[in-house]
């Protein structure tokens, strides 16, 4: 499964690679990284029709995670990507907005990687979104 991580913090990439080194080694998950909403859209344009799970930060310079979410849900319908929002601001407002825009899940920073792993494994095994 391809997972696209969108975050303006570049070290997020290293962290994900370390945290999911087993999954990467066993090739159950392939990680791709984008440092902005614009980059993420560019990636998605290039990889249309690939089943992708997107993990996006909300609070980014330029296009925000919520705007990205809105555009993804409008533009990419086949297959509809799973979008999980990750934010440092875990307030109601953000949560409601994300959900109304069609987010599939909502996580707060600091990321609980065990929980995230469980969720990703559930997606892989349960819903069978494999490429």
């Amino acid at each position, binding site marked *: 499964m391809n997972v696209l991580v969108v975050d303006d913090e570049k070290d997020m990439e290293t962290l994900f690679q*370390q945290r999911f080194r087993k999954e990467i080694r066993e090739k159950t998950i392939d990680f791709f990284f984008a440092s902005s909403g614009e980059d993420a859209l560019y990636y998605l344009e290039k990889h249309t029709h690939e089943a992708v799970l997107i993990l996006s930060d909300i609070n980014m310079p330029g296009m925000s995670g919520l705007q990205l979410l809105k555009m993804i849900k409008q533009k990419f319908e086949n297959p509809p990507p799973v979008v999980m929002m990750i934010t440092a*601001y875990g307030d109601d407002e*953000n949560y409601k907005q994300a959900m109304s825009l069609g987010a599939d899940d909502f996580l707060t920073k600091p990321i609980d990687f065990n929980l995230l792993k469980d969720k990703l494994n559930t997606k892989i095994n349960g819903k069978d979104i494999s490429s």
Partner: protein
Amino acid sequence: MPLEPILAFFLIRYMRKNLRTFSPDLGWDKILTRAIYGVVILFVILFIVDHFLSVDKVTIWIWHLLLLAIVYISFTLPLFSRVRTVMVAVLPLIVLSLSGDILKSIDGNLYNRIETFIDIAFAVAITWMVAMLIKSTKQNKALEKERKRTLDEEERSRFIEAQKVELEIIVAERTAEITKQKDELQHTLTELKTTQTQLIHSEKMASLGELTAGIAHEIQNPLNFVNNFSEVNFELIEEMKNELLSGNTNEAVAIAENIKDNEKKIIHHGKRADAIVKGMLQHSRSSSGQKELTDINALADEYLRLSYHGLRAKDKSFNATMETHFDESLEKLKVIPQDVGRAFLNLFTNAFYAVSEKKNLAINTDVINGQAYVPTVIICTKKLNGKVQVSVRDNGMGIPKKALDKIFQPFFTTKPSGQGTGLGLSLSYEIITQGHGGDIRVETKEGEFAEFIIDLPTEK
């Protein structure tokens, strides 16, 4: 012959009048007044005596004696120096009358023979008297005038003296009043200075408040990394141990390499958090006034992030595109970093405020002039001849013309009351111009953009 009594009467009166006018003397005044009454009474008595007893020859000598006495007194006492002219005028008449009477009593025939001459002499004496009296009157008038003038002058100088005293009192009162006012003003000034210091402090605190959320967010990120990488390292060390126990040295070395990289990340993010906290402390602290070599690009970037996240935390829907065009060839500048940082912060906060205002206006349509509105704040640094230019441009509401010349004034704010201290730009202005010998100016078009341009001189 009534000449002598009349003369005596008028001479005494004249003496008294003269005395009263020029040199009042109570004792003599009394004597002369009595003398006047005495003359009148004497005249009446002698007249009666003469009438009934016909002692004409005797009474005349009394009058002669009286007149001689008057003349004598006039010429001997300095008190009567002023009546001497009149005495000189009447003297020939008195002498002539006396001489005539003496001659008459000694040799009546001779007197009768030379009576014509005596009459002529009388006429001359009377003429003399009249002439002298006229002269005396003139003299007296002149004297009187002189005296009046002196009196007037005295009166005036007395008046001036009195006025002077009065004026001095008024001046003293005024001086006291002014001194009091001065003291009050001094007091007020001291109070104002204290208030100013407090206001500047509260402005710092207010901007710190705006920053708090941004700072929290900024600290949270590096802390998350520190925690996460530490946890990863914990697992990696466990794995490395297992590999070593299994004898897979190469694998263990690879893991050790990973651990090392992660440690680098931990150190990096720890330092990042450290720098943020230090920056926050610097911001709240009163300026140490110490200029130090500062990377203007890094300073601008740091405060830009703080400002953005601060606003983001307050307004969840807020979002803006930030463009930074940093001139990497910029040399470090000697500035007071927390002061210049505060000036930057004010400009960034204003820029973000301006774009969010415009965004809120367009919230329903998301479209302005047929195009989607993208709130944008652009930061530029540029190296110019002898100075470094930092510009902060936003495509927000712009600044209305009527507000343009007031924006750097203390307490001027366009924000709703309670939301801005009105000190941000005025403090920024002070920091840049007075603190660093630089310049700050603005270019704007209402409804379209505002660009604040800071010039900082590169010190040699």
